[in-house]
């Protein structure tokens, strides 16, 4: 099948009575179904599922995969997403039946290996964060934020200030998830502006905090890829006002073994194991968003957590736990991969991860600022944000530049984020890219900048080499077709 040929949907290639499975024999005596299910509860119309042979299913999904781009295919500098290489040995390890074939309610003495892994991962993350203890339960960063904010709420409630401390402060450069999570946790949201250097405007923060402040959510390095060098003062301002500090760990790839959120003054941290700790992104999950908290907040962690006694490891609920946010113990299969990654790299390896992530980002920024506007010209951390505003003068938007990159076989950076940068282009190379890849990317970005000037139509018509051309998103939203249409 040609790469650019459209692939009909499963139901369009279905043939009546074809099957792609085998089941064990039904070897027990059967009774009439109507004896087991009252007629009124039996299905009347059968679901229209496809009927396909195994080989048809294999070819269908193999061909779909050929129309998809992953880190395994090429450079994927999607800012804030840390698209690093996903080590294959971790896949093999997570697939070991001792990890992938265990039931969450087995007696604890039969899953000591799994519990030990969780206990140790909790400790490793606490050491990396510079805090006391973790909960591995949240399924993704957003759920980690939500759980962390509930801990902040529980802390204030325990001090009799629950009603009063109803506000969460979020920078204008923050991920949209931050305010959305604060809303889910029942807080009202106050926005603190950025200063001219791209950091939190400290004077404005001083004005915002008060007895109504529950906490501040911050990414550090922030979404511009810049280290908040006023962090100690920021932490003091929030703590003095009686609030707590939440660290959005989406950008933790720059800090491993270099600096720690706990040492900066943060009280609650979430890590995205699918970003910093190399577990694959899976086309949009599963991720894992463990949270790590200070000693004082351990009692509020979502349960269960793993504890250790002489006889072995066991599950327990912290004393004033906020409860559960996720079934069972979180995305265990993802935890296994992150654990293996940490054990493979050790302290020195993790530090090299961050050093090289920062080196690669600065190398790209150093070159690309000659062709694209760099609104905050400072040493960056693991990522940086360009603006497409010079190209905009030729009628070429950041979206056009992103689409043109696809023609050159590269995944586009994150675009139009953070919101405080006009025509933003957010680039995160990660440590797993070579200088040769970076040099090629620089060349391509220069070529596109030239094209924007000399031949803007070519950029605006992009992409032309992909399986489909630029898709009409307005049409998709105005006339939503959200399932296969019956023929």
């Amino acid at each position, binding site marked *: 099948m040609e790469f650019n040929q459209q692939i009909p949907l499963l139901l369009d290639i279905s043939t009546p009575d074809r099957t*792609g499975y085998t089941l064990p024999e039904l070897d027990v005596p059967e*009774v009439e179904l109507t004896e087991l299910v009252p007629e009124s509860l039996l299905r009347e119309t059968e679901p229209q599922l496809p009927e396909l042979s195994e080989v048809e299913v294999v070819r269908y999904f193999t061909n779909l995969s050929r129309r998809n781009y992953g880190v395994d295919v090429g450079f994927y500098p999607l800012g804030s997403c840390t698209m690093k290489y996903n080590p294959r040995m971790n896949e093999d390890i997570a697939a070991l039946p001792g990890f992938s074939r265990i039931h969450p309610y087995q007696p604890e003495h039969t899953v000591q290996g799994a519990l030990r892994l969780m206990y140790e991962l909790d400790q490793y993350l606490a050491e990396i964060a510079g805090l006391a203890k973790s909960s591995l339960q949240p399924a993704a960063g957003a759920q980690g934020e939500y759980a962390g904010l509930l801990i902040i709420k529980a802390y204030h409630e325990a001090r009799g200030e629950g009603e009063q401390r109803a506000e969460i402060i979020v920078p204008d450069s923050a991920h949209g998830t931050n305010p959305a999570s604060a809303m889910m946790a029942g807080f009202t949201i106050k926005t603190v502006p950025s200063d001219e250097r791209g950091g939190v405007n400290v004077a404005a923060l001083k004005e915002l905090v008060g007895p109504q402040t529950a906490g501040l959510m911050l990414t550090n390095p922030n979404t511009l890829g810049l280290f908040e060098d006023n962090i100690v003062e920021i932490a003091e301002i929030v703590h003095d006002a009686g609030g707590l500090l939440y660290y959005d760990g989406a950008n933790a790839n720059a800090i491993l073994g270099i600096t720690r959120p706990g040492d900066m003054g943060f009280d609650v941290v979430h890590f995205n194991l699918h970003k910093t700790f190399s577990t694959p992104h899976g086309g949009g999950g599963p991720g894992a968003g463990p949270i790590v908290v200070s000693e004082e907040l351990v009692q509020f962690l979502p349960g269960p957590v793993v504890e250790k006694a002489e006889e072995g490891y066991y599950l327990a609920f912290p004393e004033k736990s906020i409860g559960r946010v996720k079934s069972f113990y979180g995305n265990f299969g993802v935890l296994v991969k992150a654990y293996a990654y940490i054990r493979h790299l*050790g302290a020195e390896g993790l530090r090299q991860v961050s050093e090289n992530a920062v080196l690669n980002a600065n190398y790209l920024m150093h070159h690309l600022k000659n062709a694209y506007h760099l609104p905050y010209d400072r040493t960056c951390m693991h990522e940086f944000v360009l603006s497409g505003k010079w190209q905009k003068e030729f009628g070429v938007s950041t979206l056009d530049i992103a689409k043109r990159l696809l023609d050159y076989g590269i995944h586009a950076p994150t675009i139009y984020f953070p919101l405080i940068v006009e025509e933003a282009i957010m680039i995160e190379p990660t440590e797993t890219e070579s200088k040769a890849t970076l040099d090629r990317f620089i060349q391509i970005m220069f070529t596109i900048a030239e094209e924007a000037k000399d031949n803007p139509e070519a950029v605006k018509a992009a992409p032309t080499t992909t399986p489909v051309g630029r898709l009409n998103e307005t049409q998709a939203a105005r006339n939503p077709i959200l399932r296969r249409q019956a023929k």
Partner: protein
Amino acid sequence: MGFVPNTKAEQLEMLKTLGCSTIEDLFGDIPEELRLKRPLNLPEPLAEYQLIKYMTGLASKNKHLDHLVSFLGAGAYDHIVPSVIKHLVGRGEFLTAYTPYQAEISQGVLQAIFEFQTLIVELTNMEVANASMYDGASALAEAALLACNYTRRDKIGVPKNLHPEWLSIVKVYLESQDLEVIEIPYQLETGLIDLAALNPQLVSELAGIVVAQPNFFGGLEDVSAVAARVKDAGGLLIMAVDPLSLGLLKAPGDIGADIVVGDAGCLGSPISFGGPSVGFFAVSGKNLVRRMPGRIVGATTDAQGNTGYVLTLQTREQHIRREKATSNICTNQALNALIATIYLALLGKTGIKEVGYQCIQKANYLKQSLLKAGFKLRFNSLTFKEFVVQAELDWQKCNERLLEHGYLGGLPLAVVDEKLADSVLLSVTEARTKAEIDEFVALLRRYSNGV
């Protein structure tokens, strides 16, 4: 180390380009007092061979389902997983991609999600399904939030025969927004929702009522009776269903469900100590679609008229609406949704019925065998693949003895409700054989006689 390809020489060359002499120079913005002056306190690194050996050792400390015959369920099941699945989802183009922001080079993932939405809609007979949720429990919590938001009522009815973990998760989500969970009792004889508790005054205040079909005890609810009450009062009917039951049981859309959620981990995902699984979320009509949480994929065209797929209706989502979004969810469980899609493609129309049929027949065989052996059923309702058995037995101890024979017994319900201290929840899937069931019954009979 760290999968860093750059050699020392290349690193030095890059540093020179930047006008730096050491990598330390790049961290100048980090105040000196915040720099970590010692190595992280972590175990020594292990090379690939040693790591795999070490991890295999750790894994071997767990007893697993290749060696245990499981009658344990309660939300995680030993269903059969076709081999093909791991090979397809292991393809790097799927595994190592992220959320399909660049649609033109993400048609594989986007079309797969579109298929997932289509198949969930077919199974549930609802109007629209989203791209996936973290798991069934958080999907239900979000459904309850949607109902409150939609009806502008601040209470939701949730039955006490819901999975206890799901119930507590729903409570956490609702109470954090000052919404109230009204727990609806179940009848002690049947284990089913006590319809008498649904008095008109109470129901008129509810944003909706949740019905688990089957419920936590495996029992089959008379959903229509609940539907009539809640819908007359202007609330929504929310159903939490087992997708593997839907080849046999009436589709939620045919009962009048407004929102349907469930856990689709049973559709081909490894059991993996309970996660990652995947939740699904489907609604009945247009008004609810615009308030749905999560990613949604839609079909559209390019300038040449080629069909293609994109993320759509994004004005609901956090990256655009921030605190006004319908939810904070962004990354979901795409790879597990892909697994479920492949599973449903393999099983198809007849397979989905056959798996459900085998589950209910084999579970019934265990049930009848236990009755013959003198055990009692805790509830007298009809059931799907799980049911509750009652006996004057120390179930914990009994399970320990079963383990010695390679059997994983059911979930003792003392942890759920003191009144059920003498009961255990058993689960039977299509993977069990008559011989295994017979031996399991023989062992239980032996322990109940104190032998």
